[in-house]
């Protein structure tokens, strides 16, 4: 065969080839860790991402370390009613005499636990639906799109209230309803990405090999969509946090007396002029978390564009 290297370089390259041959589990783990580190490092190039990440990490840490950080138990009556902030009660007490700071620290749990779960469910289901619609096109696409339109048209709050009226408020209901309502947005995003990618040549090459539709959807197209999906997930955690807070505010979220930021704002409304700290502190907490998540999402998309 003309153009073939001499026997020495054949030997040399087969030695290199042998070295590359055995890839153990450790190699895969190490590659994964390096890829992750690479991704996180590139995130730091965007100041927005850094600020967003700092805020989110702060709240996560606070929530995890709640038992350590909180000066008093959240439901205990430790002070006089509606005391203004002082050395003993850093953020004052609420209308029942409970320490606001401790309630704040414990109150993030609902949002920080439920929001990611909702979003992960929405992303998984939405991505699958979007992949199917975008790849298969034709009748399947049309039917799925119409179903998604119908879901989007239905007000989520109304749906939640109906379910709550039937089965009572609970964490599972919240997760279910929010995931269900978020799916169409994710599905549409995914479908748009799939429509772009399915015409690219490497997908055509996969068709030429006789790959099944499932393989092409999940092993060729999906890995290329992860970037925008992650950005969408971050933003969605922000919206969802806000939603869960709103549910709490309306009194139909997690039942009392467990502290919940939304409900704290709602309960403290009557004292907004006399004891504003009861309302201001949890509001700031929710807002800052959502802002942090938005900044993080912005930063990720900024950093990924600036390659």
């Amino acid at each position, binding site marked *: 065969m003309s153009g073939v290297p001499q026997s020495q370089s054949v030997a040399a390259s087969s030695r290199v*080839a042998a070295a590359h041959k055995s890839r153990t589990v450790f190699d895969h783990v190490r590659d994964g860790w390096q890829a992750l580190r690479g991704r996180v490092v590139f995130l730091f190039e965007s100041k927005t991402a850094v600020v967003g990440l700092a805020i989110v990490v702060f709240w996560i840490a606070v929530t995890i370390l709640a038992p350590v950080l909180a000066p008093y138990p959240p439901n205990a009556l430790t002070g006089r009613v509606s005391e203004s902030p002082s050395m003993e009660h850093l953020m004052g007490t609420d209308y029942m005499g409970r320490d606001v700071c401790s309630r704040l620290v414990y109150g993030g749990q609902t949002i920080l636990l439920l929001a990611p779960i909702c979003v992960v469910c929405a992303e998984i289901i939405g991505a699958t639906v979007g992949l199917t619609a975008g790849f298969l096109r034709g009748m399947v696409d049309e039917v799925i799109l119409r179903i998604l339109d119908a879901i989007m048209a239905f007000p989520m709050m109304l749906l939640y209230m109906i379910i709550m009226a039937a089965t009572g408020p609970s964490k599972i209901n919240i997760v279910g309803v929010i995931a269900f309502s978020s799916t169409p947005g994710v599905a549409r995003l995914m479908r748009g990405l799939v429509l772009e990618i399915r015409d690219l040549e490497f997908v055509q090459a996969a068709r030429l090999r006789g790959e099944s539709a499932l393989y092409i959807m999940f092993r060729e197209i999906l890995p290329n969509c992860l970037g925008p999906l992650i950005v969408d997930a971050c933003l969605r955690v922000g919206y969802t946090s806000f939603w869960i807070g709103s549910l709490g505010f309306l009194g139909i979220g997690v039942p009392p007396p467990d502290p919940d930021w939304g409900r704290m704002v709602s309960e403290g409304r009557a004292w907004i002029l006399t004891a504003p700290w009861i309302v201001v502190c949890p509001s700031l907490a929710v807002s800052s978390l959502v802002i942090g998540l938005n900044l993080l999402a912005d930063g990720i998309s900024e950093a990924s564009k600036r390659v």
Partner: protein
Amino acid sequence: MDQIRAKETVLKVEGLEVLYETRQDDLKAVRDVSFEIRRGESLGLVGESGCGKTTAALAIMSYLSSNGRVTGGQILFQSENLVGKTDKELQPIRGSRIAMVYQDPMTTLNPSLRIERQLTEVLVVHEGLTKREAHGRCVEMLEKVQMPDPEHIMERYPHQLSGGQQQRVVIAMALLCNPDLLIMDEPTTGLDVTVEATVLDLIRALRHEFDSALLYISHNLGVIARVCDRVGVMYIGELLEEASVEDIFLRPLHPYTRSLLGCVPSIGTSKTTHPLHPIPGRVPRLNRLPAGCVFEPRCAFSQEQCREVHPPLVTVEGDRSVRCPGWQVLRGEATTLVSDDLTAGLTVSDRREDTRSVLSTSHLNTFYTGKPSWIGRLMRKKEQCVKAVDDVSLDMKRQAILGVVGESGCGKTTLAKTIVGLIAPTGGEIEFLGVDVSKIVEKRPKEVLKELQMVFQNPDSTLNPTQSVRQILARPLRISRTVPRSQVHEEVCRLLEAVSLDASYLDRRPGQMSGGEKQRIAIARAFASRPELVVCDEPVSSLDVSVQGACLNTLLGIQQTYGTSLIFISHDLSMVRYLCDYIVVMYLGKVCEVGRTDDLLSPPYHPYTEALLSAVPVPDPTVQQARIRLEGAVPSALNPPAGCRFHTRCPRKFGEMCETTEPPALWAGGGHIIYCHIPLEGLQEIEPAVSE
């Protein structure tokens, strides 16, 4: 020649240095470039992508982007230094004394303004004419650039003109104020070959009439040979050689120039007579330049001193300059180069022909139909049908290379996709290895799939960016079970070797590879399952000139090893002539001519083939080419002409027959078929289009 050199200097660039500030580094995109252009003379700046030729041109006009600036040297335009002038000071110069023509006419012309408004604006602003006076001058200028019906054109919008017409309008706009210097940056790169030929003719004619100095930038050596008096060769921001056009092409001194000439296929060369010698190595990055001569790492003649000392540009033999200390030694060397083993030109032996057929198509049709939506049907819009491939019958032998040539819209890509199965044919039959495969790929029998593969055009989207090379190459092997599972890894390494890449590429992702490397992996992937037939759709068109040769050699090498048949699709007749044993010429979905390569290059041939041969730019100023030019542009595929589809532009139109009836097949012997109404004897008497 002496008369030209005696004229006054219009532009003199001395020691130009341009810097771009980027996030990581400051990049010196142009370093120590000096040249001179006199009145009536044209200088061509040739080089590959990233060599700085466009940057140098933009620097002359002060059109650099916000992160670029001139850091050294002078730009003397009629003895006035342009460096450091403000936009206000430059305004009277730009457009009236220096004019520029860009590559893409669609983005140069404002799509929302009529041509009249855009043309008259130049005269109104620079010469203070009234609109009526300007209108008259513009119509005159449109006539000079050979636009049919200039008054009508003035009323149109840019999107209503064809690509060639738009480019002529841009040239007219540039010449309106009779500029002293005209800069053209790849003006014909986006145009079809036959249209490009007419625009190049126009540029030559205008030069004689207008006496402006011309700076012509291109990566295409053939075009430069046709248009320019002098040539400057650039490589990563440096000017390596500058000489008259004959000296550069016939007596090149710098090793880079010689390598470049050695790796470009010309219409006169074939793989058996002149194998390509691609340049080894990669173009280094601007922030990691070698310390000595920038070309040294890839140079076949490099010495110790080349690595250490950065060579200056020296004037040689009176009117040429070269940046190589060894030029005197090299002057004596033969112009053919011998490069190292891995990239050596292949010697292709004339093997005995295999007469078994691997693929045959019979009256193959692929139509794209656009059914109107229900609103359209309400408005009684007709169903639109593009006959992309119309009644094509081919027969392909084993181990042969078939080239499909044609301009944009001729259906060659659709033909490729139909044969391979990505598009379902509308009619006709395809038979592959005795099996009927006239269906879309999902419906074909599985055993056939691994025997028929494809190499795509765009190297950036041909590989999955999230997969490593190992995964990309192993997958087809696993699926087609070419080798048992335990040997997959070895086979992947063998495939990499076959495309001249080493095993360190196994864990790389496409984002870490250059265009040429990605295309070679794509070739390896196509050949992984050891197919009988591989269809290549313009595989090297998006690559740099020096890399194209390497890819073509890889393709040839692998084809010879495995004995695969190839269908090679391209718009570049020189490349097809170099590579292929048989050629099919297509026009608007129909086959014009099919036959052996040698038979196709001399009469008798189809008038369209004749036009293509006389239009293709040849990188050799001594070659005589006929001047057969086609009028107008390729008609729309939605409404193709009746009868012979070529009759609207055919310079040898025979008569009314051409407009009404489809041309018959003329058998010229040895499998050579021409579809034309002109009898064979008439075609045999045509003068050859290309002669040395």
